[in-house]
């Protein structure tokens, strides 16, 4: 490596590692052209460098991946060796549940590799990476295995919560609709199992980011109208479990007549029952309900579970106007007569004339600003 080049490279490294988030992002955006070659260099160092260099380059790549995820993805797809180097510790990590005490260096490798992976799997063309992480023939069951491994790992407290969070983010990215559509339609048993575990972990976890991920993965499943039959099977209790965090002290809020409309688990909740405090979690939960409105089965299920009543009380208490607005959206659909939907078996695939799309957004915006 020529001396002058090395110097400038080190400067770049320093800037990337030490600057604050905003400064770093600006720096990367300002130096688009050189970043490309930096990525190439860093990737080489991951293979050829010594221990410290390896960690440093991984860190550096992780930082760049926050902005230039696509560029890195393209690079990795071309350079199999680097790709393997980043993927291997992750595959090893998520496909095993027993991990011996890892030293801080190994943890760093896992952490930064995960950050890179999470960032680049936001892209739709991450299919190849996707296939290396999950067994394509048994997509959902390997998804399920990873999930239960991570749950086990998180129970041991051996790894920092950030790593668990990252794995969940990775799973969320991998559950993006275009990737798993076929499998969801083929393999409903595994889907039900997977959702049950997600809901369980959602209930148990105290980390809001992980909770949002759990629900968002379910949102990704619900997008497929055809999967809703399985997801809304009465055994899964999906709606009840989604409504529970949104319900307040029903004992105080409802009279006996309205109470009878609720699922048993939501009836007579004591005065100290609190609603989910985190906006993002509530928002994700409402997204689930909204997606259920998409199909006949979903709407019937929502109605059977007294969703309207829970949302009515939530609406009174909701302080975040945009969430409140989404609650209104769900209620709007639920209070309409079913005949009105006869023409639209799948609301999501109903085409909206282009000139109206902007208008709808505008109307929503005015409502929000009111």
């Amino acid at each position: 490596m020529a001396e002058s080049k090395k110097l400038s490279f080190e400067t770049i490294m320093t800037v990337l590692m030490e600057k604050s988030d905003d400064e770093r992002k600006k720096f990367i955006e300002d130096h688009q052209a050189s970043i490309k070659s930096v990525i190439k260099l860093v990737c080489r160092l991951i293979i050829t460098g010594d221990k410290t260099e390896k960690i440093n380059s991984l860190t550096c790549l992780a930082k760049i991946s926050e902005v230039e995820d696509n560029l890195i993805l393209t690079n990795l797809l071309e350079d199999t060796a680097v790709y393997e180097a980043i993927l291997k510790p992750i595959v090893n990590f998520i496909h095993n549940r027993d991990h011996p005490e890892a030293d801080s260096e190994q943890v760093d490798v896992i952490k930064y590799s995960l950050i890179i992976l999470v960032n680049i799997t936001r892209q739709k063309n991450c299919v190849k990476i996707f296939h290396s992480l999950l067994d394509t023939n048994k997509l959902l069951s390997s998804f399920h295995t990873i999930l239960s491994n991570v749950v086990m790992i998180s129970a041991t407290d051996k790894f920092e919560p950030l790593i668990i969070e990252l794995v969940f983010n990775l799973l969320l990215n991998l559950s993006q609709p275009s990737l798993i559509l076929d499998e969801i339609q083929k393999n409903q048993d595994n889907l039900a199992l997977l959702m049950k575990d997600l809901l369980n972990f959602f209930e148990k976890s105290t980390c809001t980011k992980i909770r949002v991920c759990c629900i968002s993965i379910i949102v990704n499943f619900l997008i497929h109208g055809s999967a809703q039959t399985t997801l809304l099977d009465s055994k899964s209790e999906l709606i009840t479990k989604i409504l529970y965090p949104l319900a307040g002290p029903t004992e105080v809020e409802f009279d006996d007549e309205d109470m009878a409309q609720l699922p048993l688990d939501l009836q007579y909740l004591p005065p100290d029952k609190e609603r989910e405090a985190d906006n993002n979690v509530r928002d994700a939960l409402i997204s689930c309900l909204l997606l259920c409105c998409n199909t006949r089965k979903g709407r019937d299920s929502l109605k059977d579970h007294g969703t309207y009543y829970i949302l009515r009380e939530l609406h009174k208490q909701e302080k975040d106007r945009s969430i409140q607005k989404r609650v209104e959206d769900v209620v709007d659909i639920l209070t309409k007569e079913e005949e009105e939907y006869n023409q639209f078996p799948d609301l999501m695939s109903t085409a909206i004339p282009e000139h109206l799309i902007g208008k709808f957004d505008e109307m929503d915006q005015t409502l929000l600003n009111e």
Partner: protein
Amino acid sequence: MEEHPLFMTKSPEGELPPLVEAIAQVKYDEEMDNKRELAQNYKDDGNENFRFKKYRWAIDCYTKALDCKIDDSEFNSVLCNNRASAHYHLGNFRSSMQDALQAVKYKADNKKAVLRAVECMMKLEKYQQCIDFCQNSNFKSELNSFITKAQDELKRIERDLRKQQAEERRIKAKQEEILKAVAERKINYQGSLFTASHPAAEGHQVYLNNLGQLVWPVLFVYPEYGQTDFIESFNENDSFTDHLKLMFPLDENHPNWDIERKYKTDDLKIAFQDPRTSQFHPFKLTKRLKDVLSDSKFVVVSSVPTFVIVPKDKSFT
């Protein structure tokens, strides 16, 4: 007729005819080499009795068969399950469940016994045990409907518990409100304000109406005739005259026990007794209940304010 064996209503007393005894001995001979055959005989008899709905006899037969202690778990499993069925028909769900579980222990894939055990658990409302049992059973996939039902029942029980707690909280809050109102009025009381000892007062207690007024159950005592009147709802703003007028109307509804017809509102006097001093404190009938209750000498005893009423010419003691 009675003497003919076919029409006998009782089994013959005393010794069996020698021939019958001999047959019985052959059939149930404990000394028989082949215990297996004996057990089989008992089992067949049990089944025969079962067919004729003689469940108690069937149970005895199966028990005897089991007592033979044949070393054949399949055979024993069937015996236990048959006895479980007989118990089930008699409504002995606990015994039935124990036998069914024993049958499953002898042979894990005795499906009939598994189902019998599950049915008993549902009858006995052992829902959690039922769920655990189903989930560990070889026939788990076929028992899903039971699992769902048991889970529902558990949810219902939990809901009922929450409902009951809610009700208790509601009553407690109401009582606290009343106690606050009582304290504000400086009304003395002994014991609880919410549990009456007088039989007529049962189920009636002081309450706050929507106007924030206390409405009391009140007892009038007429010592002269040993009579009492219980007034369920005596608004604290009512005067005693208001109620006495209703008690002693001048028409045919006047109480019978007042033979002399001297109990007329204007001719009566009223007092309360201070339980601490046993002294009577007379007061004017035109007073409102509220004012009397707030008297420092007045004490509400066992939740019902009590007043003594006598004609003007009599004394209270």
